[in-house]
């Protein structure tokens, strides 16, 4: 088993929490992990991405090679497109449809949807709406993880365990909201 996952978003959108959940689940599942992330200047409202690789055998590179990502999981629709060169033939794009506009020239949603539509059965998620339904707009990254769960190569139960472990310190309510958000994303993706 080997999965190459690109996590994409804008600095401050919480893609590192998504990475942390997958990492935790993979580590506890005895898998090998490499997860490269962006620190420093670009974190200030710039485009950020994380290359996450998990496998049941030794991994060498921290970066994913072009055309080999099984999944692009993006919490912002334009950012999903930025990393298309990494997508493997047959790889899947799971993206939030909430645009984050902080620069001039942001394209129209129709243009973005047209480009997303060229990929293999993209999973498009109104994550903010679902997160609010789950109990907090801040849980929208867990909605996205839920929607992408079946492409991660990790059992959803293990991902839920990881969410519980990582949010435990913030109290039971926060754990429940995030689990609910995860399941709502999962449901949407499976339907």
């Amino acid at each position, binding site marked *: 088993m080997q999965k190459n996952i690109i996590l994409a978003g*804008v*600095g401050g959108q919480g893609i590192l929490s998504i990475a942390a959940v997958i*990492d*935790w689940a993979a*580590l506890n599942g*005895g898998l*090998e*992990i*490499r*997860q*490269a*992330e*962006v*620190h*420093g*200047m*670009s*974190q*200030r*409202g*710039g*485009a950020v991405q994380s*290359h996450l690789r998990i496998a049941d055998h030794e*991994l*060498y*590179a*921290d*970066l994913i*090679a*072009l*055309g*080999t990502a099984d999944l692009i999981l993006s919490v912002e629709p*334009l*950012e999903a*497109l*930025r990393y*298309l*060169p*990494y*997508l493997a*033939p047959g790889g899947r794009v799971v993206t939030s449809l909430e645009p984050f506009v*902080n*620069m*001039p*020239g*942001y*394209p129209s949603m129709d*243009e*973005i949807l047209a*480009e997303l539509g060229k990929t293999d059965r993209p999973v498009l998620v109104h994550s903010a709406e679902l997160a609010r339904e789950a109990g907090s707009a801040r849980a929208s990254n867990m909605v996205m993880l839920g929607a992408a769960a079946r492409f991660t190569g990790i059992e959803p139960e293990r991902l839920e365990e990881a969410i519980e472990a990582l949010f435990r310190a*913030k109290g039971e309510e926060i754990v429940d909201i995030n689990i609910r958000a995860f399941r709502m994303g999962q449901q949407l993706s499976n339907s």
Partner: protein
Amino acid sequence: MNRQLLLGAEAVAQGAIDAGLSGVYAYPGTPSTEITEYIQRSKEAREHGIRSSWSTNEKTAYEAALGMSYAGKRSLVCMKHVGLNVAADAFINSAITGVNGGLVLAVADDPSMHSSQNEQDSRVYGKFAMVPVLEPASQQELYDAMFHAFELSESVRLPVVVRMTTRLSHSRAGVERQATLEQNPLYAEYAPERFVLMPHNARRQYQHLLGLQPMLEELSESSFLNQPVEGHGPVGVIAFGIGFNYVMEAKLAHGIDCRVLKIGQYPLPRAQVNELFEACETVVVVEEGYPVYEELFRGYFGSSKIRGRMDGALPRAGELTTDLVAAALGAAAPASTAVPGIVVNRPPELCKGCGHRDMFDAINIVMQENEEHHVFSDIGCYTLGALPPYNAIHTCVDMGASITMAKGAADAGLRPAVAVLGDSTFAHSGMTGLLDAVNDRSPVTVIIADNDTTAMTGGQHSSASGSKIIDICRGLGVDEKHIRTFVPLKKNLQENITILREEFAYEGVSVVIACRECIESAAKKKRRAAATGQ
């Protein structure tokens, strides 16, 4: 299972803690900051009394680490590649004095300049100082290399460099820990013949350093960081640091069969290198950074046997990837989609609500009143003031250069001559330049954007902010009437404009402190207070 998920930087930190570290000294700088932050957060480090607060700059950090080593204990000093320029004087000379307790310099290079102004290769510094350099290829190797580095440092009595690059420093992987070692006891011996670098001692010590070189090469031959990988065919690869990872990925992905020599400890293991070069018709040199050893292998007159960054097999600049290395080994480019044309860049920007925004608004208004409106700036979040919508600063060269460049321009006759730098950068390298301006009565206005933190690297403690800055400026001889403070807020805009206008017009040294807490630190404090129920 005792695996922990650690960033490369954190693996360095945990390795140092477990290898009997007594103190870490550092100035923040991407991608090295997380080493020290990890030690500061570590419960074990606290229990072991490991000293870990931030230093004022890389030079003070390095010298303090050398002092701790002098007293017999194991010390770690961390910085980014350009930080080593600041610490270079201490570093190079510590190779002449040698060390007592193990002294390890962890330096993080930034090829592709993700968060830096150049991509200088610290291995060159290692060669320059003639000390051992370790360049591990994985997080586990980094962890293990820390034990090795301290041991090596104590056995050859030299500082040892552990070099890593952005990708390894900022990538996580599972790391297995070893049994921890006790700290060294305090043991300072009088050794002026080594540590007083007057010429007669320096000459002898330098001869000693030269004499050590064959032994260092010998030690590289048996290092676990240098390993041949079996293979066949006329093409061989010598792969340095994480270059090795891309070679192995390319071999797997494209079914390439070739010999590989993995290098992770310098000086080079000559016998292993000779063996590879004798066995292969062509050798591809894969270095994450400058073509330091490729140039050496080629020699002045070149060699058609060698491929790498210098003949275009690999790009001359920038970090490596599996794809670049695969192409250099002759693999066909992968099928991959292009980035759609509608995807525009998303450059970083100052946070919404950041005080720097209000400071730049005021500066821009006053500057537009002047025919010349050059603003000399520096390294920090406020460097983002160079981008639209502000376009407010016109230089950013190295830590502290804002004040000294403004001074030089003022000496040349430029008016107004304005410098903008942050509180942490002022403490790092601004103070000495301000003294120069005072001594020369150069008409400069130094605007210190005091947000009470080292914000760009994630909010580390600043060595001087608030009243300390005022005291420093006064102590350096700036006229008290021309040390002004304002709060960069929208409601104060008119008042702030007036202050700037007055000080720009003053024919002498003035300091204007734009004082407002970083909104990120404020938010962090609020979150912490909420979490503890206060």
